Every structure is written in C-alpha cells, then in structure tokens.
C-alpha cells in the first residue's frame, strides 16, 4: 500500500500505463490490418490458382471435341490424334540400348552416379545441386529407367509400419522448390533405413528446380526402396507439366535429350503409387476422397493406365467402326477418330476407375457436409466431415493425411482432427506468403508438426515489407486477369450505368467483377487498390483498367483478338505442345489453322479466321510455313504502366 508521498509517483505511473496502452492498442490495430491484407493477398493467389486449374480441366473437353471433329487431311495427321489418345507407350527400348547411346563427355564436371546407387550418390547429388550443377541426361535417364523397373513391381498402395524407435516423416507439395527440400533434410535428417519418409505428390511444376527435386527423390527411392515412399500428385501428369513449367524446364536444361526424358517420365508418373497406408490406420494420399471412394477397387486397378487427368477414357462407339486406319503408333483408328471397342477396353481404365483416381488426386476437404463437385478446380470434389467419417470407418482407418492445398502455416487440421493437410513448399506464392511443414508420426503417438520458412537473407524483412511484396504481387496478377476480360467487364459496367456517368456503386462494381471473373474475392476490401472511388463512394469503373494494357505484337490487330489470345494463352500453350509431337517448338501453319478452327468452335470465340491467319503470318518470321509457338504466345504480355517505378520503390 502506498503512502501519500508516493501519490505523485502513482500519478506518474498511471500516465505511463495509459501511454503504454495507447501505443499497444494502436500497434495491435496496425498489425491486425497488415495480417488481414496478407490474408487477402493469399486469397487472391489461391482463387486465381484454382480458377486456372479449372480452365485446365476444361481442356480435356476440348481434346475430346478435337478427336470427334478432327478430319485428317494428310497421311501424317493421324499421328496428331493418336498422340492425344495413345494408350500404349511407345516401345521404349531397354535401358542399356537407350541410355548407353548417350555419352558423358570427359569435360562434364557434374555429379557422376554409379549404378546400383548407394547413399554416397545421394550425398553427391545434394552437394552438386547446392552448387547449381546440372545432372547429365545420361544419369537422368538411367535413374528414370531404374525407377520404372522398380516401380513396376510395387502395388498401388504402399503399406508401412512404424515403431516407437522408427518414426516416419510425411512431407507435402514441394513444387520444384529445392531449398525447401534441403531445409527438410537439414532439419530432419537424410532418408535412411532409420529415417523413413513419405513424399505426398506434386514434386514438380511451378518452382525452378523440379528436375533436381525429382532426381533427389528418385535416387533416394532407388537407394532405400522400402523407406522412401512416393505418392503420385495431380502434377505428376505430363499434360499438367506442359502448362505449369516442368516441360519447359526440361527442354531448357536438356536441349539435346529433353524429349527422351519427357517420354520416359510420362510412363514413370503412371507407375507412381496412388497412396501410402501407415500402420493400417492412416491413409496418405495427395488430394482427398469422395463419398464413393472404393479403396478395394483402387488397390486392384491398373494404375499404369492413368496417363493424365486431361485424358479421360475415350467413348467407345461400336457403330462407327467401319473405316480402319492404322496409325504410325500401331493403334487402329476409325475415321474420324473413334476407337474400336475391342482394342481399347483392355488398354484403358473404365470411366469409374478413372474418376476414382481423379478424386484421390484432386479433391479438397471443406466444412460443409456432403460431397460436391469441386467447382474451383474443375475436377475431384469437395468432401465434408461426414464423408470423411464414413469412408474412414468403412476401411477401419483413423486419419487422412493429404496435401494439394497451400496453407498459411504449412499445415491445417480439419474435420474434427481426422484430416490433416500438409504442405511443404514455403513462400509458395510469394516471399512471406506461407510456411512449409512436415509431420513426424510414430505408432501410438500424436503427430508432431515442424514448420519452417526458406529465406534468402539471414534476418527476415519487417512484416510490412513482406506484406507489401505479397500484396503487390497479388494485385499485379489480379490486374492481368482483369485486363484479359476488359470487353466483358466494360459491357457489364455499362449495363449498370444507366445515366452514362462513368460511375456505379461499389456494390454494383463488386457484383460485376465477381460474376465476370468468376473469382470469389473480398472485392470491397480490395476496391481501394483496384479502382478510383470518389467521396460519395462511387466507383469510376474505367479506372479498373488503368495502369495496365496488353502489348500488341502488331499494330493492326484488333484488340478483342489480342484479349482472347492473352486470356487463353495457357490453354493454347498446352494445345500447341500436344500438337508438336516431336517437341521441336514449331508447328506448321496448316496445323495452326486447323487447331485454331477447332478451338474457335469449341470455345465459342467470335473471331474471324482471317484475322488469326493474318496474325500468324506476321509471326512466321522465317516465312518457311512454320510458327515458333513459344514466340507467338510470348508476344502477348501485359504491360504494367508503373512497373519500373514500383520496383525501384520496393528497393
């Protein structure tokens, strides 16, 4: 108890307490708003990522459409169709003949692997990749061949057991982020007989070191086949790779032998196990489940027939089996492209089996009960806690561990503790966007989570810098989306602008943005970053398009065409890559025209063929009748008006 002489002291300390409260209050408010902005940026990244995937899945409809309407006009054309619908792999010769044909020059300073591989090869590989060396194609192919051989002997699901002295570590998506893999091995130890791992899919795409990540994992698998377990993810799919960067990475790093690598990689993907079951209790799969998930069927089916999520089983039409045409690939085709039922049923999965696998690789858990089509991704489903309970109980399992979704903290638990999402690529969208994590499991123990974040500097930049960087990046890609739908958006805005004042309410603006772009985002909270708002709260809607425009490769081209080509450039990338069966990077003008006609019809794009023709002609710079499609697509890019300014500001 104080006496009167300390009353001034009391007053003083009261003032201090009040001052401290003011500062703390203000800081917490500021910090919370920063965190909210961080979350908004994350939401933008995620929405756009899933919307892209949805667009991706719609491509499979296009390929089916193409098959049904493509009339081969020349002898070589059947190759195009069969390229899409090959059901047996090209007869790839034995490794000795294939790989042996590739010499490793004495001048090569990279890592040299010795088969059969041992743990020293793992160490060698890690060291080499840390110094940014590239593994020679000879060894890449050697590893792929050995992996193919070994995987063929493995069942669809790997069953593992843990013990109190032998815990297992489960990692999620890596997406070509080599630094994250290094960090995991640094924190958790290299794989070995005593330190088993499960890598739950999506090793490749998006990051810049997909091949290195894949090599480390496959080499580790070859050295420790009973302790390093790999599950297939939705990106272990040669068509996904065409769009999300892995195909490009391989063709860049392996200019001479890239095609060979891609060929055998396709097959290796199909041989990756569908999942892992730990202690008969925990199911580890990449995406999720659906209410009709049939584990017994999934154990039995021939997983090697699942080539790509974009290649659903072809419809079998017995009526049209009149004209037979033998293609180069040795598959009998009927004109205009239907396949004979007797030949195909043994070479494809049934539709039901195919869907079962798509569900496993693409589904996401949600809080809502029941099972619904996964509309944001366009494949698999959303499954609720009731579906989880039902399926887990049916097979006497206790928990589901999956990946597939980026989580802010690297992991997330839902469905009453029965579903864990584990994601191992930190800074996935942008520096500071999220942590990565892995789980350690031991029998009878609760799972333990370990989080990390890769940073390029020794101390992390302050929170507001990180949030800024993330926000700017998210707003940037959002603006690119907006500009690619300019015509439709303007139409929607003008519909609501009865007085032709150039202004509409925020509510009207938000509604238009959401319905045209199909992105469920907090538009009101983002509005201040995207448009000009006047004092009475109305939006100057044309300001949605300020600061950004699509660069026209040629002046005379109509802007609608530019917009359309920009919008569909990723889809076109895949289509071109598929047509370009010899991976030369070039397609003929005729192939281009045919493909464009089909594309235009299927996607209901209202653009004159002659316009596209004229454009293609200008792109055929060599005038030799072929188009370098990478150059063609690169020509459509978005220019951000203040790009240079903003980068200098950030530094």
């Amino acid at each position: 108890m104080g006496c009167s002489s300390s009353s001034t002291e009391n007053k003083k300390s009261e003032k201090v307490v009040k001052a401290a409260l003011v500062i703390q209050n203000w800081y917490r408010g500021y910090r919370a708003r920063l965190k909210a902005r961080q979350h908004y940026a994350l939401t933008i990244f995620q929405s756009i990522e899933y919307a892209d995937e949805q667009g991706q899945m719609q491509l499979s409809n296009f390929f089916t459409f193409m098959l049904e309407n493509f009339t081969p006009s020349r002898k070589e054309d059947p190759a195009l169709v069969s390229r899409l619908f090959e059901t047996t792999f090209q007869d790839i010769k034995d490794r000795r003949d294939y790989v042996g044909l590739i010499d490793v020059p004495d001048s090569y300073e990279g890592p040299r692997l010795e088969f059969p591989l041992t743990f020293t090869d793992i160490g060698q590989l890690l060291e080499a990749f840390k110094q940014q060396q590239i593994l020679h194609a000879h060894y890449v192919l050697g590893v792929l061949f050995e992996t193919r051989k070994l995987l063929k002997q493995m069942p669809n699901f790997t069953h593992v057991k843990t013990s109190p002295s032998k815990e297992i570590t489960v990692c999620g998506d890596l997406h070509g982020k080599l630094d994250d893999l290094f960090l995991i091995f640094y924190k958790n130890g290299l794989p070995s007989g005593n330190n088993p791992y499960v890598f739950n899919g999506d090793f490749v795409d998006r990051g810049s070191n997909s091949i290195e990540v894949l090599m480390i994992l496959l080499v580790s698998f070859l050295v420790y086949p009973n302790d390093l377990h790999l599950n297939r993810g939705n990106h272990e799919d040669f068509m996904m790779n065409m769009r999300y960067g892995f195909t490009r990475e391989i063709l860049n790093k392996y200019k001479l032998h890239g095609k060979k690598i891609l060929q055998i990689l396709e097959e290796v993907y199909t041989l990756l196990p569908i999942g892992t079951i730990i202690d008969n209790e925990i199911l580890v799969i990449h995406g999720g489940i659906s209410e009709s998930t049939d584990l017994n069927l999934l154990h039995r089916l021939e997983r090697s027939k699942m080539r790509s999520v974009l290649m659903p089983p072809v419809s079998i039409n017995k009526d049209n089996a009149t004209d037979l045409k033998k293609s180069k690939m040795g598959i009998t085709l009927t004109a205009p492209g239907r396949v004979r039922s007797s030949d195909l049923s043994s070479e494809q999965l049934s539709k039901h089996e195919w869907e079962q696998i798509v569900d496993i690789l693409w589904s996401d858990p949600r809080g809502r009960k029941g099972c619904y089509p996964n509309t944001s991704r366009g494949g698999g489903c959303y499954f609720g806690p009731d579906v989880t309970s039902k399926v887990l109980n049916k097979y006497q399992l206790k928990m589901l561990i999956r990946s597939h979704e980026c989580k802010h903290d690297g992991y997330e638990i839902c469905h009453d503790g029965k579903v864990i999402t584990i994601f191992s690529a930190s800074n996935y969208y942008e520096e500071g966007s999220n942590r990565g994590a892995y789980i350690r499991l031991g029998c009878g123990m609760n799972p333990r989570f370990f989080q990390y974040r890769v940073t390029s500097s020794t101390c992390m930049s302050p929170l507001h810098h990180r949030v800024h960087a993330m926000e700017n990046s998210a707003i940037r890609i959002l603006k690119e989306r907006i500009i690619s739908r300019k015509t439709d958006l303007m139409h929607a805005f003008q519909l609501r602008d009865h007085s032709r004042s150039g202004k509409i309410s925020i509510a009207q603006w938000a509604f238009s943005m959401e319905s045209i772009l199909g992105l469920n985002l907090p538009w009101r909270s983002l509005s201040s970053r995207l448009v000009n708002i006047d004092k009475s709260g109305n939006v100057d809607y044309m300001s949605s398009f300020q600061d950004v425009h699509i660069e026209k490769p040629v002046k005379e081209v109509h802007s609608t065409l530019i917009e359309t080509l920009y919008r569909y450039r990723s889809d076109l990338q895949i289509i071109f890559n598929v047509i370009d069966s010899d991976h030369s990077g070039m397609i003929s003008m005729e192939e281009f025209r045919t493909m464009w006609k089909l594309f235009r019809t299927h996607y209901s794009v209202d653009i004159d063929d002659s316009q596209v023709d004229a454009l293609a002609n200008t792109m055929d710079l060599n005038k030799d009748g072929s188009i370098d499609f990478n150059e063609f697509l690169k020509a459509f890019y978005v220019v951000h008006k203040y790009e240079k300014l903003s980068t200098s500001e950030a530094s």
Partner: protein
Amino acid sequence: MYCLLTDRKATWSNKQRLTERRGIISCNENRSRDRKKNSQLVLADFHKKIKEAFEVFDHESNNTVDVREIGTIIRSLGCCPSEGEIHDLLAEVEEEEPTGYIRYEKFLPVMTKVLQERRYRPIPEDVLLGAFEVLDSAKRGFLTKEELVKYMTEEGEPFSQEEMEEMLSAAIDPGSNSVNYKEYITMMVIDEN
C-alpha cells in the same frame, strides 16, 4: 394562376398554405423515406463488409472462424479495441459452451452494432505521439530498444514475444539501437494509406 379579389386571395393563400403544408409533410415523408433507404443501404454495406472480412478467415468455408482470429477481424474493419474490450466482445459472440470457433450468425449482429455505434475509434496521430512523449521523459525524441521493450512488455496490456519482435524489426534503427518515434509514426501512417 392569379387571383382577383382580396377574399379570393385569402382562400388562395389558405390553399397555398395547405399545399405548402402538404408539401412539407410529403417532403418530410420523402426525407425520412430517403433516410430509411440510406440507412438500409448503409446497413447492407456494413453487412457486406463484415461478411468479406469474416470469409477471409473462414478457412473451411463453413461460416465459422477460429476464436483467436476475432481480434484481427474486428481490427481489420477499422476498429481499435483494446485487448480487454475484445474479451468483452468475445463473451457476446461465443457459444454457451465455448467450442474454439465463432459462428457468423452470432458475430454479424454484434459487429454491426459496433460499426453503427462507431465504437473503438482509431487513435489519432497526435494522441499517439503524446503517448510516446510520456514514455520519453527526458524528451530526447527517441526511445532506446531496452526502454521500448520494457514498457511494451511490462506495462498496460503487455505484448507477446512475437508482437514485440515484429514491432522492433520495423521500428528500431539498428545503428543507434533506438526508435525515433516521430519518424516511426509518420512511416506507419503513410504505409496504412
């Protein structure tokens, strides 16, 4: 319309007065109808804002958020409650048996009232500056790192270690190991706008 005689004038002005009165009444009715419409629009706008802020943290898309995110959500809507005030608000939105989750149906009415009553207004810049000046008794214009840490972690509603580290990373000038609070405040204010 014109009138001829005074008594007509009287009638006319009566009529005029009547019309005027009717005009005022209808004008008043219009104004109150407009006010009602406006307040309905404002209310709808509040609801949408609250929904957006809530949904960003609703990871499972089932109209619930983790109870630990409530403070962040309220603050992201522009309010500045103290930790104690957040606890009081939580009591209003939690379930009878706390589940660790807050449901949107309970959050919406409480938060709407907070916005309508303009509660927990943000701290004006000059008050913030005054607070720093109180702590800087020697009026040097800065606080050392140790002083800042002491005040923030020992007085008022103390910072967690994470909060303290984050504030230090942006505020402290590593050369002098102190924070020039005037500059710091200016920087933060610019950043928010």
